């Protein structure tokens, strides 16, 4: 695992890419270490309002340029303050944090399933899988959004040669329905499913559904979870998720990516 650092990064871009959704690009040394599925813990204000940092996944990182990207939805005080920052402002971050997605072993077929803002970390994952030539394939990608307007990341994937299957709840873009439904149908075409590996991030129902499918079909699946965080580094024991063994795991340190069998989603 990479060693996290606390630092001030320089903001180079902060643009709205969909209603209430922003893409921020920063310059940070951690671009080198950042793995898909890891996150940054961001202080959105230098006052006590809000007091705590906000965890946001890394949606892209480039060793060469030293740039890191995040994509976030404005929902409350923290993300509201975030979206008001401008290029040239500095951003107080800790990262990269957590256990990211493990890369597929050679010969595996990767399937990526994302919903809503959960698509963000999967973009970086898709890029790394696509780049990883020993793997020899592009990930199959299913993405769901509420509506056409809210879709993002499709061009990014296209530029990697990935033609994602898109669905929207209202049918305004791609298929009408959930990505899990399409994925389930798609699964039928495989005789041998033992070769598949699933990566998912999105709302709880999406994750639960993937967990059930993976368990039923004996497919390895990695899920990226969310929980309220204080420290982000494993010190406060605040971000617990029920372990399938006894006790709790910590989303910030044991995750945010878990093998579906490791944890319980109530």
């Amino acid at each position, binding site marked *: 695992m990479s060693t996290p*650092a606390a630092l001030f990064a320089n903001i180079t871009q902060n643009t709205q890419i969909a209603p209430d959704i922003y893409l921020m690009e920063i310059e940070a040394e951690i671009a080198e270490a950042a793995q898909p599925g890891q996150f940054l813990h961001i202080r959105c204000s230098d006052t006590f309002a809000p007091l705590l*940092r906000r965890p946001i996944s890394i949606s892209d990182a480039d060793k060469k340029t030293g740039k890191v990207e995040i994509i976030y939805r404005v929902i409350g005080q923290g993300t509201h303050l975030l979206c008001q920052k401008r290029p040239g402002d500095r951003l107080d971050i800790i990262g990269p944090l957590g256990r990211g997605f493990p890369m597929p072993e050679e010969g595996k077929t990767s399937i990526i399933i994302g919903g809503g803002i959960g698509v963000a970390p999967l973009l970086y994952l898709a890029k790394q899988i696509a780049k990883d030539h020993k793997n020899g394939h592009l990930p199959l990608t299913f993405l769901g959004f509420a509506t056409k307007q809210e879709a993002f990341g499709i061009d990014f994937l296209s530029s990697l040669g990935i033609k994602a299957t898109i669905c929207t709840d209202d049918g305004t873009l791609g298929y009408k329905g959930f990505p899990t439904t399409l994925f389930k149908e798609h699964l039928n075409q495989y005789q041998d499913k033992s070769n598949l590996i699933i990566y998912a991030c999105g709302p709880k129902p999406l994750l639960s559904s993937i967990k059930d499918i993976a368990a039923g079909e004996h497919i390895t699946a990695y899920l990226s979870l969310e929980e309220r965080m204080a420290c982000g580094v494993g*010190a*406060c*024991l605040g*971000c617990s998720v029920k372990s399938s063994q006894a006790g*709790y795991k910590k989303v910030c340190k044991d995750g945010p990516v878990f093998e579906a069998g490791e944890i319980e989603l109530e």
Partner: protein
Amino acid sequence: MTDNTDLTVNIAGIKMQNPVMVASGTFGFGNEYKNFYDINKLGALVTKGLTLMPKAGNPPPRIHETPAGVLNSVGLENPGVEQFIAKEWPCLSKLKIPVIANISGDTVEDYYKIAKQLSTLENLAALEVNISCPNVEKGGLAFGQEPESASEVIKAVREATRLPIIAKLSPNVSHIQKIAEAVVSAGADAISLINTLLGMAIDIHSMGPVFCRKFAGLSGPAVKPVALRMVWEVYEAVSVPIIGMGGITTWQDAVEFILAGATAVAVGTANFVNPIAPIEIIEGLKTYLYLKETNLHDLIGAAH
């Protein structure tokens, strides 16, 4: 200019190179913050609260943000004293700074037993006896709310150990001075305060309490005025050293606590906000002492 400022303090025999500690439950067993600075620079490290048996802790959510504060309902999740000794202690015991074990129990006997077991550890600097945890079913807070029960717990620990005893008091009381006097008579060598204030939050969408256990512990800058007042009160009531905590985020906060009567301070919630807060506080203290042309010992309680 300020590098040879003397910041050493001695709390009931615990020799610290500076008065800035980290508060129990906000620093795990010391592993997580090693990435951010050399933790041997701290005054002392206090472990996550330990219990006799392992504790799974409370179901999520465990954290809820409030104005300038945090409610937590961690529920003393910890591996139990045996696992602590087997897995965490080897690493902790190698630190060059004093390590203080924070302990909790459901019964007075629990406190006795855990104190006994921990006393076998060479190098352990002291026991901080938590009689004020609001996040567990039995014991915890209840012990700390009455002078009699608080005193009983400390007496039991006193019998079990020759280690210095730091009694950690609850702010959820009418008369903090009475509790302080009781624990000192019972054998406490020092007092730390405050633990969290009992609070709650309600989710107006689901129309129920945010936390499964309904109440949770409030910490962070919001509680600082209350913590400071209690340090002041306890300083006037007893003569043992006080470790002040509750909302300390800057060196200015630390100075306020020291002026109110704290010999040392602990940084809790601030670690989550600014991982290098304790180091910044140590540096700030040095500069303040330099500019005020005074020394730490003259500062302690100087506002009285």
